[in-house]
């Protein structure tokens, strides 16, 4: 089957790739571009471990075809930290032990960052419902919710 040529942007960098029409954005990121930060936990959009942003919108990259990335701006966990420093969410996640095994962490960070960009002062309930599409089996979510809430408070103070 002939491949599709796609021109897109990932974490601000221009990227071109060829992919099978059946490959997902997640397949392309992981197996063609070496961006293995996004994880495949289910392949059916139920676990959120593959969360990325597409033109600023939170998406399960296992549910979007690689060919659909044409002309889009994709953001992954690899783009959250700057050259100089970790994002405040990343620091708080380590400090609060908001991760244990860490496999859901990339998706949760992408989702949480997207939430704080929309709502800098979320309630606990808002954080819980926003992250309800990101499964974590290790933590019971307690420390994740606290880390996100505290990051939001700190970022509000700093701004």
């Amino acid at each position, binding site marked *: 089957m002939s491949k599709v040529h796609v021109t897109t942007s990932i974490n601000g960098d221009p990227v071109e790739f060829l992919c*099978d029409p*059946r*490959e997902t954005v997640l*397949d392309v990121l*992981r*197996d063609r571009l070496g*961006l*293995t*930060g*996004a*994880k*495949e*936990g*289910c*392949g*059916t959009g*139920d*676990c959120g*471990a593959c969360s990325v942003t597409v033109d600023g919108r939170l998406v399960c990259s296992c549910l979007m075809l690689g060919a659909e990335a044409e002309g889009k701006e994709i953001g*992954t*966990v*690899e783009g*959250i*930290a700057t050259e100089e420093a*970790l994002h405040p*969410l*990343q620091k708080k*996640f*380590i*400090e*609060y*032990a908001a*991760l*244990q*095994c*860490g*496999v*859901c*962490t*990339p998706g949760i*960070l992408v989702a949480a960052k997207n939430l704080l960009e929309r709502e800098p002062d979320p309630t606990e*309930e808002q*954080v*819980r*419902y926003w*992250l*309800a*599409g*990101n*499964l*974590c*089996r*290790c*933590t*019971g*979510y*307690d*420390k*994740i*919710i606290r880390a996100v809430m505290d990051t939001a408070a700190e970022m509000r103070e700093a701004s």
Partner: protein
Amino acid sequence: MALDSLKTDGFKQIGTRPDRPDGVDKVTGRARFGADMTAPGMLWGVIVRSPHAHAKIVKIDTSAAEAMEGVKAVVTRADFSTKVQPAPGMRGEMWNVLENVMAGEKALYDGHAVAAIAATSQLAARDAAKAIKVEYEVLPHVTDVDKAMAEGAPVIREGTAEKSVPEGMHPNVVRYHESGHGDPEAGFAEADLVIEETFQTEATHQGYIEPHACLGTLGGDGKGELWCCTQGHWNVQKVCAALLDLETSQLRVTASEIGGGFGGKTAVFIEPVALALSRKANKPVKIVMNRADVFRATGPTASTSMDVKIGMKKDGTMTAATGVFRCQGGAFPGAPMEFTSMCAFAPYNLAHVKQIGYDVMTNRPKQAAYRAPGSPMAAFAVESVVDQLCNQLGLDPIDTRLKNASREGTQASFGPKWDRIGLVETLEAAKAHPHYATPLKEGQGRGVSCGFWFNHGGETAVSLALSEDGTAQLAVGTPDIGGSRASMAMMAAEELGIPYENVRCTVVDTASLGYNEISHGSRVTYASGLATIKAARDAVKKLCARAAAKWGIDEDAVKWEDGCAVPSGPNAGEHEPMPLAKITAKMGATGGPIVGHFEATPEGAGVSFATHIVDSEVDKETGKTTITRYTVVQDAGKAIHPTYVEGQYQGGAAQGIGWALNEEYIYGEDGRLQNAGFLDYRIPVASDLPMIDTVIVEVPNPGHPYGVRGVGETSICPPLAAIANAVSNASGVRLKQLPMSPPRILKALGTHD
């Protein structure tokens, strides 16, 4: 180890909360998990699985698949060892694993592997897998534990039963356990109230977010390398070597970062298949399971059917208890019925107690360990009956448990006398917690339960190498499943007297240390921690010897204080303290590298008890249960990194909430798993749960230099019963079958058919 050699205070590192060494890698996406590795020339493997619960494999035709573009190898059972032979019960475990990894004459459950294929891309491999034609002769099947024991049930495998199984039982009953003491009938006669109930729990999956994944390479020369997500890479090495007729040492296994295990990654599923494909194709082969296959073909925990009978006097004294625990663990022996039996009454000091366990085979996937395997189900049954007794006799549930609690010196329900244990302390802390005194709101109910787990030691080897600049490289062999690298580095830093940041702890491959048992049994902080402390002390002894040589005094006249060798005793003379970095800077010229190590099978893993308090609300219209407040009180012995201990408590409670309320394996009449995905097998999400409060009780374990007890597993033991008790209190109906899903609650309430 005597209690007086315990160090329980005066720590510089222990009890602090430093950042974990793998933190930055895990928040930036750099951490490499099972599926994140590639190799030059790598192929992708895909496994073909049975769609039938029980079927004879008549013929496998691989010719069409092999002719397809990009296909490089196909394997079936014929490509695995013929030396491994079956035997009754757990004596045949290596054969059981082989049979589970790749079916022989019969497919034994929906999802059982029957063939595998390797091709140049994942898509090519998937397409080719569909072209493999398997001819089956479908056989009658059974998936329910009680039905599998009944007369006329299809026999899974004749001749699997151990001799201990009572005569006349169905051949699917393959192992038997009996323990206890006293005369239960006499004890029941002394009781004012005796309650006997039957309970059922469904199989639940560990539900780790990372599917099993591996990358293996194996040459015709019998030499191989394997990368995989596992809780124990030495076990993977041993099993793969046996299943492929290799010499163990010729296979080097590296454990990747592991995306959750909870017992489910103690087993071997895909690794021998990748190696068999690699040997045939002469190229590296990567296999990544999909989620449906994780549910269908990797081990959930056992499902159970249990009868529990307890007698109590009006003052709350328990007079006797008996339990019968029927556990099915799939199409192989191994359901943890002896643990279910032994944990059942462990919290109670009983004069008369007896427990019986049956291991039953069905047409389901081979069960694997799941966090305190077997114990949560037992606690569900026993603690539900204790709650009923308290309710009917008008007794406080915590006071009643305190009255009957196991203590140091009392005889455990399964035999031995208890050493120093912390059950009473957890009950007292629960009673004193503000949660227990807070009035309930209208429509809410409160439940309490205790839980118990043995904890484990196991074979352990650790090595600690000092660097010239005075930093330390700590090599451990137990995959880090909960932040253990931080805890190990803290213990090494504590002994060496150097900053935590100066210790780098690595989980090394099988070529770098002696055998390390799997990260299971809550053993890592206990056993690898003990070995780390002893390895550091070994290094310290060598550091002191270098200082002694420099000073020209006896080695005995040097001691270690705050990271320095210092003279000690009347004949040591006056010498300036010699810091670690000063000794290591010159070590090349003073005797060579300084490495401390320790190898042993530590046997002092202290048992662990917990008490949980939970408040719930039941919506009588929808049957939905909401957990409104949750408190975990558990004995950690000594919390090395308290934040990570809290994380274990919270994680276990959350998994218990899922097990109690939603999670279950659902089989259709056709024996096929109907909910093999996270949409239909619903684990708790963030919006389902409240914050989970924790209290760390510290009753030191005499078997660890700092008093550590494992904490990972006990936290999942009390939730099932604590929630059942809370639901009963809130709704007025007692559920004796898990999960307490909305349909079951509605049925119990009688408001819906």
